[in-house]
């Protein structure tokens, strides 16, 4: 076991864990940040996506030891003072979910994409989100939600 201090959603959270334990496992099982989901543990589904230094990252493929060096943002960190982030609001407005289990990962994947490309084409959205599975098949609405968020950001909404 090792002692780490994780920078999560603007807070410094001390945690004891094996250095090779995944960030996903530490977030969910030691810090009770369960908005980040387990879907496959192999980087194939995107349900566990978080932001590491602003970039979408599969938390099931990152050890807690390496994650301790980065600024981590999980789904719980997007809402500010009761106000949803632009991407969260866009997903809500488009009802871009069914069971919602993939939604956290989708929102963080889209947040990362929109930081890199303010106005992605549909092809670029598909390419960036291809690693995320929505087993309920809500892809068309998710694409619409990403486009909506892109429009809102262009109009000056905060990220």
């Amino acid at each position, binding site marked *: 076991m090792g002692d780490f201090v994780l920078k999560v959603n603007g807070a410094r959270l001390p945690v004891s864990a094996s250095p090779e334990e995944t960030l996903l496992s530490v977030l969910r099982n030691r810090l009770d940040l369960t908005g980040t*989901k387990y879907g496959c543990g192999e980087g194939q589904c995107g349900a566990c996506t978080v932001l590491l230094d602003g970039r979408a990252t599969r938390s099931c493929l990152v050890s807690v030891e390496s994650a301790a060096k980065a600024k981590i943002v999980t789904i719980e960190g997007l809402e500010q003072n009761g106000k949803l982030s632009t991407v969260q609001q866009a997903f809500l407005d488009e009802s871009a979910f069914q069971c919602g289990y993939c939604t956290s990962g989708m929102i963080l994947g889209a947040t990362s994409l929109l930081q890199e490309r303010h106005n992605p084409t549909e092809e670029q959205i598909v390419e960036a989100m291809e690693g995320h599975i929505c087993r309920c098949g809500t892809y068309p609405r998710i694409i619409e939600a990403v486009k909506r968020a892109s429009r809102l950001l262009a109009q000056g909404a905060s990220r």
Partner: protein
Amino acid sequence: MNHRDEPITESVQGSLTTRQGGSEMGRRDFLKVLGGGLLVCLAHTSSWAQESGRGFGGHEPSNDLSSWLHIAADGRVKVFTGKVEVGQNIRTSLAQLVAEELRVPFDAITMVMGDTDLTPWDMGTFGSRTTPTMGPQLRTMAAAARQMLLEIAAQRWHMAPAGLTAAGGKVTDPQNTRSLTYGELSRGEKLLKTVSSEQRLTPAPEWKIAGTAVPKAEGRDLVTGKHKYPSDITRPEMMFGAVLRPDGFNATLVSLNTGAAEKLPGIKVVRDGDFIGLVAPDAFAAQRALAAIEAKWNVPAQPSNQGLFAYLKNNPEGGREDGPQYVSGSVGPALAGVALKLEEQYAVAYIAHAPLEPRASVAEWIDGKLTVWTGTQRPFGVRDELMQAFHLSPAEVRVIQPDMGSGYGGKHTGEAAIEAARLAKAVGKPVKVVWTRSEEFTWAYLRPAGLIEIKAGAQRDGTLVAWEHHNYNSGPAAIGTPYSVANQLIQYHAAKSPLRQGSYRGLASTANHFARESHMDGMAHATGIDPLEFRLKNLTDARLRAVFQAAAEKFGWGRLKSTPERGFGIAGGVDKGGYVATCAEVEIDTASKRVRIRRIVQAWECGAIVNPDGLRNQLAGAIVQGIGGALFERILFADGRILNPHFAQYRVPRFSDTPQIEVVLIDRTDLPSAGAGETGLVGLAPAVGNAIFAASGIRLRNMPMAPRSGVPGEPDPGLRS
């Protein structure tokens, strides 16, 4: 799913036929917990209608109660139902129906669902049954509650109830504009009423809340990550469990060494007969300890994909067959004299539900009472499994189903619940068990594989005269043809499945529609008649004709001419009260043989629409999910092992597979609402297959039709997805 009709796993079947114990909390207890107010119960039989008015005497008819509705002193309405929310939006659409009949704002309703201590017994959430059965039950209760509130107000005001109106959560006297809120009316009351199913319900054309696109009630908690799914539940002092899986199906244990695992800190190995599991202080330690267990297994030789369909045909289940589902006229002589005959075999592979949230449970024992939080479509069924496994009474087990990461028919059973309960009992602390993806692919159950043989005949003018349809193993759902055919022999043949199989969204409706609608397309081409025209020529069902015509019109059917690079196909059918017609446009790269679905137009009708936005979401989702089974999803197996138990090897539909989707809804407010979770899936595969044929002249008769690599034992389709 109708359990009498369908091939389901032994464990599912066993639990479906067990006793129907009701909720363990009596109605009087309820009013204590809820703090008075108005509690309405719905009886299944009209005999309970005699027991009405204030209080109730004698009977304790909890077994016959199907739903409860409570109005508290603050005007909040709680509705109790054993149905569960799995992404199909039923939490929202049921609340809309209650709000409509009760005349309260949508926000006044809280749905309490899938908790065996709080909700009346329910068989489960499957078969598209919630909307057509639970919907009217809750509407009936709400209408009765509204009537009671009118009567209470009339008593307070010393007048007849007839002149009063109920709206917006208030009863109003229009004569002198006084009004009382429902909260004011129920305050201080301890009212119990059991009502019959004889209430006048608001007709759909008059709906103001039902029938509208109310946003998903729990949407905000989904985008913030606040919603607690079954795998997110934690309890004080909770430990983490893991279960040792055999090397293959039907394996026997040869040797076991748990020494290394038990030396790891905090690990307790639990052995109980064939069950070998362990408990650890954290999830990481549990998986590490599991990997440290040395076990040798003997796995017997077993069937594989190679020769599967011949195996299913040659290995009937049980002895006597039940006989044909449909028989009329005489197929043999009719075929002998007919101008056009077509005889083909179709096949569907085993596929996995692969819900993104795998099986998960938290179990806790307190003073001999077991409480389990788990993801299941059948909380009362899982309660029965737990009662059986641990020899408990209904009062000693509570199953709670938090809205889960879906199921698609794949979570009828309680494996993880029993595992967590067993481990929790052994260590005396709450234990969480979450299956890995590979466990979910391997140890859950699958959509049945099947072989379908069809022999059909038509006159030269396109009139169908004979239809013979045999389904081996995949199932009898929607096996009957909706087309008018004088001579029919249609039969389902149960087979010994080499793999564990069970329910799946739409059941065999997908396989039977794939075979029937592919065959209809083949017959149309053989007669030289346009595929849509050929269908309509043999179809009298006005509702099915209407969706065919609506889909075709929106799609531009008839104006579009297939080329080798671009094909157009149509298919449709009816099942579980839902009418569907699907038009597909596919693109084929003639050099690489790659198939892509470019556009889907689907017309749908299921009576009066409760929530058009939720319905569109369900239908688009069904189309996307259907693409997997149509083109590339399949379980590969050999000698008792699943060979592709990972998303890297088992391909599911992704963003890039998604075509342009247009859904046409026909809202029949003159007809009762049917469910819409399943039948939206069944038109996709045959429409795509028919489009591929129109472009290429290649008739693909195996689902999946275009896997990236060939399925062992099946003809190579020559096309790739």
